[in-house]
């Protein structure tokens, strides 16, 4: 940078060597500190403004209970009241099975859909479209399809399998189905991309060594995919854990599906108790972190290095 003007004035004497300046800059650059670092500034502004500050504000708020009684009074109230405390188990009872099912159902489908075949694009679209629907549309569809007068129950009644409609909405199952419909495409896309990152010649090599398809999957693909499965589980779990609209629309928000986000909503907008709402939000975050930490500890037991593919 300093050399350019010198080159344009050939008659000028060469500048005296400046040892410190380039030396320091060079040392900093070796540690990754240079002007390119400024590129992450916008991201830092966003993270501080939209995540760290609101988070710390909420954390502070949760220690200032509206009804007094010390900084931890709201936490105490939450955990001593079974009606509040049980929302944790209700939410986990929805989110963990839903996330597990999403991941486990995606694996065989994504595995089967590797490589090229006719109609792959169409099939992918069909599998992924639900991600664009949104919770409300999904809920409406579920009401029409699985409701007491919906096609599903009418069909069961017609062929005489049941005597009265099975209750599949406005309870646990309604929310569960909704979480599967919105969560599956997400898990499928993630797992597909993890699978495409595994070098296909590994399975070919295993085949030439006498491994049938199940052994190839079990010994080669699955171990290499496991870290990706853990990550996918975490992400779909977080999505499912913050379930709110479908818990109200197709669930039973006063009972079976009174999930933790409903508790937080009621505290904030029905009782106008912001400190309590913040407390519930903090508890919600802590539970998510505990589950994610447990999954990541489990994941660290597996090989997490390169998988040789394009990923």
């Amino acid at each position: 940078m300093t050399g350019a003007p010198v080159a344009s004035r050939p008659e000028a004497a060469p500048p005296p060597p400046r040892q410190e300046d380039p030396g320091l800059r060079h040392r900093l650059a070796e540690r990754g500190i240079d002007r390119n670092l400024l590129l992450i500034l916008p991201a830092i502004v966003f993270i501080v403004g939209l995540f760290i500050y609101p988070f710390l504000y909420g954390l502070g708020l949760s220690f200032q209970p509206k009804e007094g009684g010390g900084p931890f009074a709201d936490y105490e109230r939450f955990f001593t009241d079974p009606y509040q405390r049980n929302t944790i188990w209700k939410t986990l009872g929805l989110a963990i099975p839903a996330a597990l099912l999403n991941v486990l159902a995606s694996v065989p489908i994504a595995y089967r859909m590797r490589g090229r075949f006719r109609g792959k694009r169409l099939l992918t679209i069909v599998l992924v479209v639900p991600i664009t629907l949104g919770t409300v549309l999904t809920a409406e569809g579920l009401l029409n399809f699985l409701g007491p007068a919906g096609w599903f129950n009418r069909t069961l009644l017609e062929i005489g399998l049941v005597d009265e409609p099975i209750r599949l909405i406005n309870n646990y199952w309604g929310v569960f189905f909704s979480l599967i419909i919105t969560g599956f495409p997400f898990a499928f896309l993630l797992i597909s991309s993890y699978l495409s990152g595994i070098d296909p010649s590994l399975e070919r090599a295993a085949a030439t060594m006498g491994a049938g398809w199940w052994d190839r999957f079990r010994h080669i693909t699955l171990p290499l995919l496991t870290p990706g499965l853990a990550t996918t589980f975490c992400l779909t779990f977080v999505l499912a854990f913050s379930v709110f609209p479908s818990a109200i629309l197709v669930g039973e928000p006063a009972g079976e599906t009174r999930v933790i986000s409903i508790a937080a909503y009621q505290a904030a907008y029905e009782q106008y108790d912001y400190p309590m709402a913040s407390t519930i939000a903090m508890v919600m975050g802590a539970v998510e972190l505990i589950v994610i930490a447990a999954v990541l500890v489990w994941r660290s037991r597996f090989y997490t290095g390169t998988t040789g593919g394009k990923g």
Partner: protein
Amino acid sequence: MKGQDQFATLTLRGVGRRFGATDALKNLDLEIGKGEFIALLGPSGCGKSTALNCLAGLLPLTAGSIWLDDTRVDVLPPERRGFGMVFQNYALFPHMSVRRNVAFGLRMRRLAKSEVTRRTEEAIQLVQLQEHADKLPGQLSGGQQQRVAIARAVVLEPSLVLMDEPLSNLDAKLRLEMRTEIRRLHQSLGLTTVYVTHDQEEALSLADRLVVLRAGEVQQIGTPEDLHNRPANWHVADFMGYRNLLRLTAGDKVGDGVRVEGSGLSLVATAVGGVPPGTPVLTAVRPEDLVVTGGTGAAAPNRIGATVEVVEYQGRELAVEARTADGVLLHVRSEQRLAPGDEVTLDVAVDRLLAFPEDDGDVAEEASTLDGVPAMSGRESAG
């Protein structure tokens, strides 16, 4: 699988593979005897890797059949053929240690634990990786990974080992070392091997027999000596290091040879294939067969005068580019010290100068990319 371990002949009958409308491999007939080392040789896109994948069972045939003696194997999936394969990128399982990589095939055969351990250790010893046995492939150098890949293939004592350009990812020095290693392994284990490469030197030094492919078709099958000294057509010659390919015109017979003329040259060559008088021929000669003489001595039948243009130092020898008065560019190797601008006289023996008929329709297009030929094509109307 037991029966396949001992076989006398592996036979490929009219093996072909189409991709859409193009033939990647056409009508490959080949008999491989037990213990033979066969190299499939050709430029990229010639169908050699296709042939290997067809043999391994990774690619279904679209024509022909493959037989181990009287057993048809092309209908079997790869895991039931009992062949070992070394992949170009090694395809080591990244999450398994060297030991577990080598043991994998044995475990898949549900062998007793003690036998798996014994044979695994033997194979690791064979490729001298004892001290690296517990490392993951990612912690090994390219050459060591290569050895794991080989150990993993030979530990199963397969009836056939397939190698897909196994040395192409190594640097020059390591490549030579591993080449010797592969040859040594083949000599000590006697495993029937099919080896794919685009490197003629590698193929010549390793193989008992070579199969030269071009555009999916077999050009020639023969021993290294056959291919080196008697290429069947000019494509093979071009590929086997006949760097000087001159487009000349055939003349009358002279003794055992045939006169070839054009571009100010008049030489006596050995005809390979029919070259009736008046037809265009491609005359091929290796750089090392163009001998630099002082222009003295007995009058040789083929004497060419040229001026040195470029000299490259290559240790014991010099690689020289020289041009004749009529503009024909010649590649020469010389032990004499030459400098650009030197006038040299080149002699070539009749049996070292091969005249091939221009066989294909696409010859003009392809020949124009050959060394020396463009300089001549401009002068063709004059000659």
